[in-house]
């Protein structure tokens, strides 16, 4: 039985002559590996062609592109669409260049026409780990920073309570408890971006984006927060 199995395994490379590669891969002709001259344990490798990803991890990342809409998507009027090859390629080129703390492998990427918010290039759906890129995204110059921003919304979900409290304090948020027993968080007077006032995680994402995009300038403007992010998200 073992002999039959071994024979089957050994026969696989011999019978697979024509290698079909995907569009995100390139076909290469392999140099034939000769039998190891000293130990004699490495057999001659008969395969002559193989596929190599054109961009690092493309074969993994490409599975994260989804054409179907998000069920129950609450942004009314937004229309999901299919990814074009050019768009997918553009993202496949960007993803391997991003820092590991972005956790690219955890997201799925969706494509939609226009955001319900004017001038918004991207959005995030946190429950299913989706990042939605709108038409506008593909016209923007700072595409990397936009993906970092969206990833930061997902990262925020993992931030520990103490770290959130520290971030809020350093960013300038104030916390008040009202007579109705509700805790209200008021945004900083000096905002890094105007939409930072809308939510804490938006402010967090704006800060991470700025830290990533221009760390020197960010360090000058927000020295404490620079250290805070540097410890957690090294560049």
């Amino acid at each position, binding site marked *: 039985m073992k002999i039959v199995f071994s024979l089957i395994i050994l026969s696989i490379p011999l019978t697979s002559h024509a290698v079909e590669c995907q569009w995100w891969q390139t076909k290469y002709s392999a140099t034939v590996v000769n039998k190891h001259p000293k130990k004699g344990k490495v057999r001659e490798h008969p395969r002559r062609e193989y596929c190599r990803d054109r961009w690092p991890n493309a074969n993994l990342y490409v599975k994260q592109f989804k054409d179907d809409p998000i069920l129950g998507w609450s942004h009314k009027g937004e229309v999901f669409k299919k990814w074009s090859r050019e768009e997918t390629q553009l993202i496949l080129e960007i993803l391997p260049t991003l820092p590991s703390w972005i956790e690219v492998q955890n997201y799925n990427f969706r494509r939609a026409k226009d955001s319900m918010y004017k001038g918004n290039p991207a959005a*995030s759906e*946190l429950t299913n780990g989706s990042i939605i890129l709108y038409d506008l995204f593909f016209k923007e110059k700072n595409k990397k920073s936009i993906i970092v921003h969206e990833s930061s*919304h997902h990262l925020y979900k993992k931030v520990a309570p103490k770290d959130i409290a520290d971030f*809020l304090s350093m960013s300038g948020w104030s916390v008040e*408890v009202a007579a109705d*027993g509700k805790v209200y968080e008021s945004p900083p007077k000096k905002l890094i971006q105007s939409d930072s006032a*809308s939510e804490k995680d938006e402010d967090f994402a704006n800060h991470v984006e700025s830290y990533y995009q221009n760390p020197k300038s960010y360090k000058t403007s927000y020295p404490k927060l620079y250290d805070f992010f540097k410890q957690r998200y090294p560049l």
Partner: protein
Amino acid sequence: MRLTFWLFLFVVSCTSNKSASSKDRYEAMNDLWQNKANKSEVISTLGTNYQVAPSGITYSFTTFNYPKSGHFFNQANQLIVQFIFLEKNEFETFKDKIKCPWSVEKKMVSSGHTVQTIEYGECKSLSINYTYPSNLNTYEIRWEK
């Protein structure tokens, strides 16, 4: 009923050095709620390291400055609202200890450019509700009618 409550206070004060530890704070809070405690009773149970808030008091997290729990009183000095923020593991223990028929609803909620599913739980019989995620990525447990 009152005697039972004071006995409860005595036990808490003996076992936790006049303040409930964060682990069982919510249990003490539930007892305070059931007994319609007043401000002094809340302080006796949870400790004197509180901050004054409008119509109530709050207690901070031990390691950082953010309210961990809050307790609010009506004009008759009766506890009418209280909250506590619990981390996920604390919440699991809370659910184990405070037996209650929870009705849970999940809603997809839009907030700015992000959309996420918020979990709302309610136990009508004990007048407790919770929201997750809430402030600080925690569960927010509220006792209110």
